C-alpha cells in the first residue's frame, strides 16, 4: 500500500516544505507495529516526488480479529491494499501537511494550489470505474485507472480485482490529502474498526468545504458511516455547527464512545424471512401471513399448546403467544443466530408483562423430539420450501405420525404467483429448494395426509385471476377429535 505525491512546476519544491520532511533523509517510523516509510525520488525546484508506503505485520494484522479462525486470514488483502488502515498508518507522517500548521515562512504555500499527480493503490473496491471517476472528477481531478494483472493458467477471472488510481489536478496539498483520507476508505468499503464518533469527527473536519456540494455526498456518507443512525448524527452535527459557527471541533462529546456499539457487518444480506426480490409486497405479505395464521389459531378449539417449527427470529411465535387461550408456544429453531434474536424479542414481551411468552427450543425437523408430541397446533410457516424435496416426506411423516398435532398449518409460496413479481431469478429466495404450484402443493399434502387427518387448502394475500394468491396454506386437522365433539 502506497501513495505517491508528485508536483511539478516552478513552485514544486514548496511541497517538500509542506510535507515537513527533509528530502535528504529517509523517513522510517514504526506506527504501532506498522513500518511507515517515506522517500523522495526527486526534489528539485520544479519537480518533487515523495513515495509513502506502509508495511503492516501480516501476523499482527489478524490477531484478535473475531474471525481469527478463518482459513483465509493469512491470505488477506488488508496487508496490501489502501484502506482506512493505510490512512491511519500515514496520518502522522502527513500531520503537518494535513493541519497546515507549518513554519511561518511556508504558510502562504498552505493555500497554494499545485499541479499534483497523486498515485495510490492497490485499491480493492466493488465500485465500478465510472463511480470511482465520479468520486474524484467533481473535485477537479483527471482520473486514470489501471488494473492489476490477472493472467492465469486456467479460466478464473476476466480481469483483476485490484486497481491503481492516478489523479491529476491543481489543488492545495492539504485539501488533496484530506480528500484522500476520506475517499480511500470510501473506495475500499471495508472498515477495520467500529464506526463511531471518530469517524464523524474525521468526516466533518476533512470534508469541510468540499464534501457538502459533492454530487456523490450520499454515497460517501453511507460508505463512511454505514449506519443510518450514525449518518443522522453526522447530519445533526453539521446543522448544529452551521447554527453555532464558529466551529468548535471539541464539542464535549466523548470521542471514544461508539455510536451505538453495533459492530460492522460485512454487508451480506441476512438470510431471513424476507425474500429478496419482492421488497415492497413482501413486507406486507409476511404481515398477512402472520395475520392469517393468528386468526386461524384464534378460531381453533384446541390451541393451548403451539409449536412454531422453524421459528426463525420468533416474530410469528411472539404473535401466537398473545392469542387468547394459548398457554404455551414452543419456538423451535436450529439456527443459534436466529434464536438469539428470538430470545431478545421474547424477553421484551416478558418485560412488557405479557403472560404467555414463547419458549425458545433448539430443534430441527430432521430429528425426532419427543417433547413435541401431542401438541394442539404445529405451524410450519414458510419452512418446507427450505428443505430438499427428498427429505421432506420423512419430515412430514414425523410431524403427522409421531407428533400428531390436532392441527398442522403449513404455508409455502405459490409459484404460479411469481409471474406477478417479474422476478429475474427462478425462485423468491436463494435458499428455496423448490417452489410449488397450487396443484403440486395439494398433491404433496394429499400424499402426506395420514390416517385421521383431513386437509384443507387456502391462500394468503391478494388474489390475481388465474394465478391465485402469493402464499398458499394447508390446514391439516385430526378427524377423530372432531367426531368426538
Amino acid at each position, binding site marked *: *500500500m*502506497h501513495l*505517491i505525491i508528485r508536483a511539478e512546476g516552478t513552485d514544486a519544491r514548496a511541497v517538500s516544505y509542506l510535507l515537513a520532511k527533509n528530502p535528504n533523509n*529517509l523517513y522510517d517510523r514504526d506506527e504501532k507495529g506498522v513500518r511507515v*516509510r517515506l*522517500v*523522495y*525520488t*526527486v*526534489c528539485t525546484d520544479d519537480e518533487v*516526488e515523495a*513515495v509513502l508506503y506502509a508495511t503492516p505485520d*501480516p*501476523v499482527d494484522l489478524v490477531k484478535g480479529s473475531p474471525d481469527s*479462525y*478463518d*482459513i*483465509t486470514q*493469512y*491470505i*488477506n*488483502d488488508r*496487508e*496490501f*491494499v489502501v484502506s482506512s488502515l493505510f490512512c491511519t498508518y500515514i496520518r502522522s507522517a502527513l500531520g503537518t501537511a494535513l493541519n497546515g500548521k507549518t513554519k511561518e515562512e511556508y504558510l502562504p504555500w498552505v493555500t497554494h494550489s499545485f499541479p499534483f499527480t497523486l498515485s495510490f*493503490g*492497490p485499491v*480493492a473496491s466493488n465500485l465500478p470505474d465510472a463511480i470511482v471517476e465520479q468520486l474524484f472528477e467533481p473535485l477537479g481531478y483527471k482520473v486514470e485507472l489501471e488494473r*492489476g*494483472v*490477472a493472467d*492465469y*493458467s*486456467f*479460466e*478464473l*477471472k476476466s480481469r*483483476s*480485482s*485490484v486497481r*491503481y488510481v492516478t489523479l491529476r489536478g491543481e489543488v492545495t496539498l492539504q485539501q488533496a490529502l484530506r480528500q484522500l483520507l476520506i475517499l480511500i476508505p470510501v473506495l475500499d468499503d471495508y472498515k477495520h474498526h467500529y464506526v463511531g464518533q471518530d469517524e464523524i469527527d474525521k468526516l466533518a473536519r476533512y470534508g469541510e468545504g468540499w464534501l457538502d456540494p459533492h454530487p456523490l455526498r450520499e454515497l460517501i456518507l453511507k460508505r463512511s458511516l454505514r449506519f443510518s443512525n450514525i449518518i443522522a448524527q453526522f447530519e445533526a452535527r453539521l446543522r448544529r455547527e452551521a447554527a453555532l459557527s464558529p466551529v468548535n471541533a471539541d464539542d464535549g462529546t466523548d470521542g471514544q464512545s461508539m455510536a451505538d456499539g453495533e459492530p460492522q457487518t460485512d454487508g451480506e444480506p441476512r438470510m431471513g424471512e424476507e425474500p429478496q426480490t419482492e421488497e415492497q409486497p413482501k413486507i406486507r405479505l409476511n404481515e398477512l401471513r402472520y395475520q392469517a395464521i393468528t386468526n386461524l389459531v384464534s378460531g381453533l378449539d384446541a390451541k393451548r399448546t403451539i409449536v412454531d417449527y422453524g421459528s426463525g427470529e420468533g416474530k410469528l411465535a411472539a404473535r401466537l403467544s398473545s392469542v387468547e387461550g394459548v398457554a404455551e408456544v414452543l419456538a423451535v429453531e*436450529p*439456527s*443459534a443466530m436466529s434464536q438469539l434474536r428470538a430470545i431478545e424479542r421474547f424477553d421484551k414481551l416478558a418485560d412488557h408483562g405479557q403472560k404467555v411468552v414463547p419458549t425458545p427450543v*433448539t*430443534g*430441527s*425437523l*430432521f*430429528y*425426532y*423430539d*419427543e*417433547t413435541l*408430541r401431542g401438541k394442539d397446533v404445529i405451524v410450519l410457516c414458510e419452512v418446507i420450501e427450505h428443505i*430438499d424435496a*427428498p*427429505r421432506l416426506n*420423512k419430515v412430514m411423516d*414425523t410431524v403427522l405420525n409421531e407428533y400428531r398435532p390436532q392441527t398442522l398449518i403449513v404455508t409455502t409460496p405459490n409459484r404460479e404467483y411469481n409471474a406477478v413479481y417479474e422476478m429475474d431469478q427462478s425462485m423468491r429466495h436463494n435458499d428455496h429448494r423448490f417452489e410449488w404450484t397450487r396443484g403440486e402443493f395439494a398433491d404433496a399434502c394429499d400424499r402426506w395426509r395420514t390416517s385421521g387427518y383431513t386437509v384443507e387448502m387456502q391462500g394468503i394475500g391478494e388474489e390475481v385471476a388465474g394465478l391465485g394468491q402469493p402464499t398458499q396454506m394447508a390446514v391439516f386437522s385430526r378427524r377423530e377429535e372432531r367426531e368426538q365433539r
Partner: protein
Amino acid sequence: MMNEDTRRTIRLPHAGIVLLMGPSNSGKSTLLARLVEEGVLLQTEVVSSDQFRMLVGDDVYIDWRGRPKHEADILYNDYQRISEQAFAAMETILRMRGGLGKLSVVDATHLYPDDRRKYIDLAHRLDLPVVVVALDVPEEALLKRDAGRAEPRGKQRVKQQAHQFKRTVRGLKEEGFDSVYILKDAQLPELRFERRSNPLLKEIGPGIDIIGDIHGCWDEMIELIGKLGYVPGEEGLYLHPEGRKLVSVGDVMSRGPQSIRTMMFWQQHVEAGAAYMVDSNHGWKIARYLSGRDVSLSHGDERVADELAQLAQEHGSEAASQWRQRMSHFLLEAPSHLVFTKNGVRHVVVAHAGIRDEAIGKQSKRISDFCRYGDTDGFDAAGKPVRKEWYAHHNTGELIVWGHDPRVQPAVVNHTINIDQGVVFGGQLTAYRYPEKAFVSVQAARDYSEAADNPLKEWARRRFSPPNLRRLIEGYSVVTDSYGEVEVRGEFVKAAIDTVSHFTVPIEELLYIPPTMSPPAVSEDEAYLEHPREAFAYYRAQGVQTMVAEKKHMGSRAILTIYKDEAAAIPYIGYPSAGSIYTRTGRAFFPNQMEHKVLGQLQQDLRTSEYFERYDTDILVLDAEILPWNLKAKELIAAQYAHVAEAAMLDRTKLLVKLKEAQAAGREVGDWIEEGERKLANAETFGQAFQYYCWDVDELEGVRIASFHILAHGGETFFDRTHVWHMEHARELAGCSKLFMETEYRVITDAASEEEAIAWWAEMTETGHEGIVVKPEFYRTRNGSKLVQPALKVRGRRYLHIIYGMDYLEPDNLKRLKQRKTRKKEKHALLEFALGMEGIERFVRKDSVERMHECVLAALALESDPVDPRL
C-alpha cells in the same frame, strides 16, 4: 463332640468387612492370631485400631490416670485426637481394600451401635457383605485378665464395657449385618473357622458356551446346543465331549412356548454341574411367583402360569407343587452374575442386563437389581424402562456378555457383547463361545411372542427414523470400538445440528466425516516450517516400523458412495439412489445434474469392469480428493488467493520502480530495495503456487478423483488392512474408470527409504505440489493400547505460502509461526478417526440411522470446536 466334622463351623466371607466385637480383654486379638496361624486369615487382612494408633500416634495407649488435672486433661485430649486420626486412617484403608474386593477384619471393641453403623454403611456402599463376630466373656474373666496386663485398663472401665456389651448385643441382629455370630468364651476352642470362596468365580476350564435369552424356545435351544456339540447322555443331560459348559444369561422362560421344560433343563444341568445360569428380570419375577409371593404376571410371564396350571392338570397338584418348590429354589439361588476365570484372572463376566465395573465379583441387593434390569433411567411414556448405556463406562478389561435387550445382531461395544437376538420374537438364538470368541446362532421357527411391541420389528421399523434430538442436544458420548468413549459438548452439538438442518446431504446418506489431520511437530531445520523427518520420528517413537508416504493432492475432499444400482441403496438408506458425493463438511459436492453424471459414469465404469461381482458387493464407499481445486473452490481462489496475489504484485512492482528511482537520485535505500525484491519474488511464488492445483474442466473432462481410503464394501470395512492395500486398491479403481486416478506413494522401512522419501517430497514440493501424507503401515495402529495418529501431513515450503501468507518464510515470521500448537488438532484427529470408523462400521452393519448419525454428528460437533485452520 470333638469330632472334626461335628464342630460348629463359622464361615467368614471371601470379601467384605468382619467386625470383631467385645470389651477389652475379651480375646479378640488372640482369636485373630489363631486364625492367622490356622491360615484362615492373612495377617494383612486384620486391621486394628491399635495398629492405626501406633501408625499415626506412635503409641497404643496413653495413661492419664493419676496425673494432675491439667496434665490429665492434656493427655486425654491427645489420646482423643490420636484416636480420631487413627479411625479416619483405618476407614480409608477399609474403603480402599473393599473397593478392591478384599476382606478386612476389624479388631476393636465396637461396643456402641454408632461404632458399628459406619462399617455397615461402608460395606453397603461397597456392595460387600458385613459380618459381626461378638465375643461374649463373663465379667469376672475380663477383670481377671485385665489385672494381669502390663497396662491394665482398670476395674471401672472393664465393668463399664462388660455392661455395655450385654446391653448392645441383644439388638445386634437388627442392625443390618449379613451374619451375626455371638460366641461364648467357652465355645471358642470348639469352633472351626473357614473362608468361603467367591461363589461368583468359575473356571473357564475347557471352554464355555454362553447362550442368549431363550424365553422358552425349547426347539431352538436344543438345535443350538446340538450345533455346539453337546450330546444327550443317560440321565437326560446334554454334555460336551470336551467338558465344555453351558452358561445362560438368564430369561430362559416366559413369552415363549415351553418355559417349564426349558427351566427344568437348566435346573438339572446346573444341579449336575454341567451348566451355569445367572439371575434375570423374568427369572426373578417367576421365582417370586413360584415361591408364593403376590406378583402380577405380564410381559409373557403369564404363560408360565398357564403352563404350570396345565402341569397340575396332567400330573396332579402334588407334582406341580413339588416342581414349583424346586424351581423357585433354583431361581432364587441364581447368582446375580458370574465371573469366569483362567489362571486366576477374570476373563468373561456374564450378567443378564449388564453390570458396572465396580460391581464385578461382588454381591448385594443393589447389584442383583442392576444385573436384572440394567441401568434404567426411569420409564418412557409407554411405561417401558429407558436404558442408559452402562457399557460406555466399562474399562476394567473383562469381556462382559449380556442379553436382556434384543438386538438384531450381536452388539459388540467397548468389550461388551449383547447376545440377545430375540429368538422369541422371531429373531435368532445366539451362543457365544469362549475362548474361541465365535458366534453360533439358530434362526427362530417363528415369532412366538405374539407381542404387539415386538422389539425386532420395532427396531426394523425405526431403523430409518430420525435420530432422537433430546438424547443428543445437550451433549452425549459415543462408544467407539477404536477409542472407547468419545464425548461431545452440547454447544458444539447444537452447531452441528444447525449444519445438518441447513446444509448437509440427508442424514441417512451422511455416513462419515473425514477426520482432520495434523502436521508433525515443527521442523528443526530453520529453513522449513514442516519437514517429513519429524513425521517419521513421530511414528518411530510410537513403535511403527513401516510407514507409507502418499502424495497429497490439492483439491477438495469428497466422500463417495456408489451403489451397484439404484435398488441396491434401499437396504442401506431406505430408498433407491445411485449414491452420493459430499464434501468434508457433509454438503453435496456437485450440483444435482453434475453429481448425477459423475455417479452415472462411475457406476457404469465399475459395472463394465465387473467390480461389484469381483468383490461380491453392492456398494463402494470411498474417501477421496477430487481435482482440480478450482472445480469446487473457484470463487474462493478468485476472491482470495488470486485477488491477494494481484494486489501484492501491483503494490510491490510499482514500489520497487520508485525505490530504484530514489536510489538513482542518491537516497540510501539499498536495504529497502533488497527487501522489496525479495517480497516481489514472494508475491510471484504465491501467484504461481495455487495455479498448480487448477486447470480447466469441461463437464466430466478434467475431473479426477483420487481415492486413498477404501471405506467399505457390502458388510465389510478395511480398517484392518495396510495402507499399501488401500493404495493398490485405488490403483485398481483407476484401472476401472478414467475418473479415478491413482496416487503415488512410497513405503518407508529404514533410513535409506526415509531419505529417498524426503528427496521425493523435496522435489515434488519444489515444483509446487502440496506435500505428502505419512501414515503408519496399518490403517488402525496402536502403541500399546493407545491409538496413534492415523496420518500426518507434511506440506511443502512453497505450498505453505497459500496457508501462512506470502512472507511466512521471512525469518522473523517463521520463528513466530514455529510456536504453533498441534495438541488439540491431534486430539481431534484421533477422536474423529475413531468416530469415522465407528460410523462406517455401523453403516455396513445396517445399524439404525440414529446409531450411525451419532458418530457423524459427533465428528461434526468436534469440527465446530475451533482449531487453528492453518494446521
